[in-house]
């Protein structure tokens, strides 16, 4: 029996939009295995600034309506990126010596199925709550380890160019931005959320990498998750062992990120397809795990979908506007 007071789903606020975008980026950040270095931060910063430069004119202007024909493309991308995130989560669990990572993933699938049943706004609200906890934890990081940070490690050799390209390999949420903006009934909220996400990408993450480099530069050539190596090197964490809390946050962010991508993959579809996408989702995850190179094109796809197509739509709209306008409007009166 349907409830007499059931109502249409509410849109997302700016905070919720920002939270989903930022948590997706953080999930990739936590799962990344590349050791921290100053060049890494430099490449990351440059990529983030370039993205911001390309996106800001689009965010300021009114959103161009996304053609329906393109929506399956975006949904397919969300599914693929979700599969890639699942593979990355497996890698994170393995790196953290989590027991039975495969069993964890098996536990995760029914949880994701259940979360798929919930309204999208629930995941967005949960993301905003988790983001506040994560932000508080991030604030504690420099406080706990500022004394032991050593700038000398910033001179460790690395390639900024590689880091620049790597940054685009990790920002799958970029590909979802047009879909998110077009489905928002409050476009200003979406733009504000995206602006907050750009700020975090271009400021907070590079600073964390720099801080991590100063903390554990010596561990540059050691294997392991660099973020958790950073935690292991901060004295307060060493005494209180806050790694466990960060593990909770990292896995939690990744699960929420997966939920968001799956929601976008099934956006606007019926119940059957909402659950039906789990078969290709798991299949692609197996493919990406078996052949990691097969996922290498996803970064470029994110850039194309997130920046390329919106710019094309914008330019097309501008051209159409110019075509419709007479070149010499005053002559119309003369004629």
């Amino acid at each position, binding site marked *: 029996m349907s409830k007499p007071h059931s109502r249409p789903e509410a849109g997302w606020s700016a905070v919720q939009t920002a939270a989903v975008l930022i948590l997706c980026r953080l999930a990739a950040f936590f799962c990344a295995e590349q050791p921290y270095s100053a060049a890494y931060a430099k490449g990351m910063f440059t990529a983030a600034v370039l993205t911001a430069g390309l996106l800001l004119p689009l965010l300021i202007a009114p959103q161009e309506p996304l053609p329906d024909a393109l929506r399956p493309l975006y949904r397919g991308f969300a599914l693929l990126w979700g599969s890639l995130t699942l593979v990355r989560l497996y890698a994170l669990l393995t790196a953290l010596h*989590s027991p*039975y990572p495969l069993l*964890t993933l098996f536990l*995760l699938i029914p949880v994701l199925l*259940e979360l798929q049943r919930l309204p999208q706004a629930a995941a967005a*609200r949960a993301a905003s*709550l988790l983001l506040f906890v994560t932000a508080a934890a991030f604030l504690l990081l420099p406080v706990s380890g500022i004394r032991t940070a050593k700038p000398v490690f910033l001179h460790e050799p690395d390639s900024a160019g590689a880091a620049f390209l790597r940054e685009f390999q990790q920002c799958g949420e970029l590909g979802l931005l047009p879909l998110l903006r077009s489905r928002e009934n409050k476009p200003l909220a979406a733009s504000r959320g995206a602006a907050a996400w750009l700020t975090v990408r271009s400021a907070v993450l590079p600073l964390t990498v720099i801080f991590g480099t100063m903390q554990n530069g010596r561990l540059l050539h050691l294997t392991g998750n660099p973020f958790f190596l950073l935690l292991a090197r901060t004295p307060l964490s060493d005494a209180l062992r806050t790694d*466990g809390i960060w593990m909770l*946050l*990292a896995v939690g962010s990744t699960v929420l990120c997966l939920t968001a991508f799956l929601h976008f993959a099934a956006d606007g579809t019926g119940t059957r397809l909402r659950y039906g996408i789990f078969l290709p989702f798991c299949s692609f995850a197996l493919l990406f795990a078996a052949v990691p190179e097969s996922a290498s094109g996803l970064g470029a796809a994110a850039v194309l979908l997130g920046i390329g197509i919106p710019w094309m739509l914008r330019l097309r709209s501008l051209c159409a506007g110019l075509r419709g306008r007479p070149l010499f409007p005053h002559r119309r009166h003369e004629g």
Partner: protein
Amino acid sequence: METAFRTLSGRLTDDLAAVRAASGGSADLLSAEITIGGVPCCLLTCEGMVAGGLLAELVTEPLNQLGFSPSDSAALLEMLRTRRLFSADSTEVREIPALLKLLYAGFAVLLIDGAGTAPAFGVQGYASRSIAEPSGEQNIYGAKEGFTEPVRTNMSLLRRRMKSPLLTFELLSAGTVSQTDLCLCWLRDRVPAGLLGEIRETLSALPLETVLSAGYIRPFLEHSDSALVHSVGTTERPDVLCAKLLEGRVGILIDGTPFALVIPQLLCETFQTLDDYNYPPAYATLLRWLKYAAGLTALLLPACYLAVSLHHPALMHETLLRLLTESEQNAPFSLTAELLGILFVYEILREAGLRLPKATGSAVGIIGGLLIGDAAVQSGLISTPVLTVAALSATSGFVIPEHHAALTVLRPLFILAASAAGIAGIAVLGTALLCHVCATEAFGFPVSAPAAPLLPRRLSDVLARIGFRRLSQQNFRVSETRLQPDDTIIYNNNTR
């Protein structure tokens, strides 16, 4: 069921027979045949539902003292209508089902020969529990009065605290068989638009035969049947309900139960008590954070202990690890079995203590806590750290009694997740729980507000307990937390 739709014929013997037939010859239907000014009448009452004193004072004596003889039934009826005030709560009925409903609600009904209408006088009075201190919401500085079973007594408890004409009561009935009285109460100037209509619509469509407690109605008012957190609250305290009504909520009093329903409820409110507003703000803020910490401890401590001990021992300090290893090495069961077992025993003892008489109940506590616990540790069946963790978790749960049911269900699930997948398992389940809580809403009010959706100005009474001067300026209204389809947040005009 022909009689169910019959109206009064005006022939006294026929009407009396029809009423008796409609009641099925029920033994508690009392009739007294009298003659008033030459007109044959019959006074009907329901045994045990009327106050004898009131009946004599407001109905019998005035009828006996009538100073003139009416010529016929119509004149008698007109005289009863206009000349005498028998009871402030009086009405007239024509249909037999309505007549029976009034009778069983404690009215005295006068059948008059020759009149197709019967006057009914409200002389209710039945045995009920007196007003006592609430058993589950005790406060130090608050009033010692709690709701009791009769709905009208509960209405008077509210009215005594709020004499404003804006406080409105509306009586409804629910339950096709029990026809239980429900009373909606709200403040007209601050209830969110449309909320009352939606509640009325829900209550009128209740597919219930009877309403014996608040728990019968609550699931129909909530968004989901499987929600672990309630979006409709309950309270035993009239002062708490008054505070909720002031914030624009709607209360439902149910006849026969000392609990009122409050719509909507926010999650943060389950960590607040009336006493918080009697303490100095700093102390109340500390208490608030203590409750949040207790909630997390009650839910996650056993699972975290298990995850760290079993799968992530590196997270523990060396001395602590050594201590735990020494304690656990002689325990015959696995850590998971130990934790689940001790929590299972705790739930058994709690249930046993709850259902027994008070004197025996405390004995169960002593036997359970001291004898079984001590004996189990002494015999080596369970280790001391496991017992400590379980006891800490259980005790923390007492701080937030509202969430006891959810904690009892979730604790073993978290333990199993931690046992299978360590901290990652806790994170996966925790994220699912967080999403579930964020998805819970009633009538468009999400329980996770004002944290999500974020209302920054309203967090001051969630993260802390601000002073009354600032609190009174803020004028919180629950309508601010309501989600609109376009996600606009409605603010009060006076706070914007």
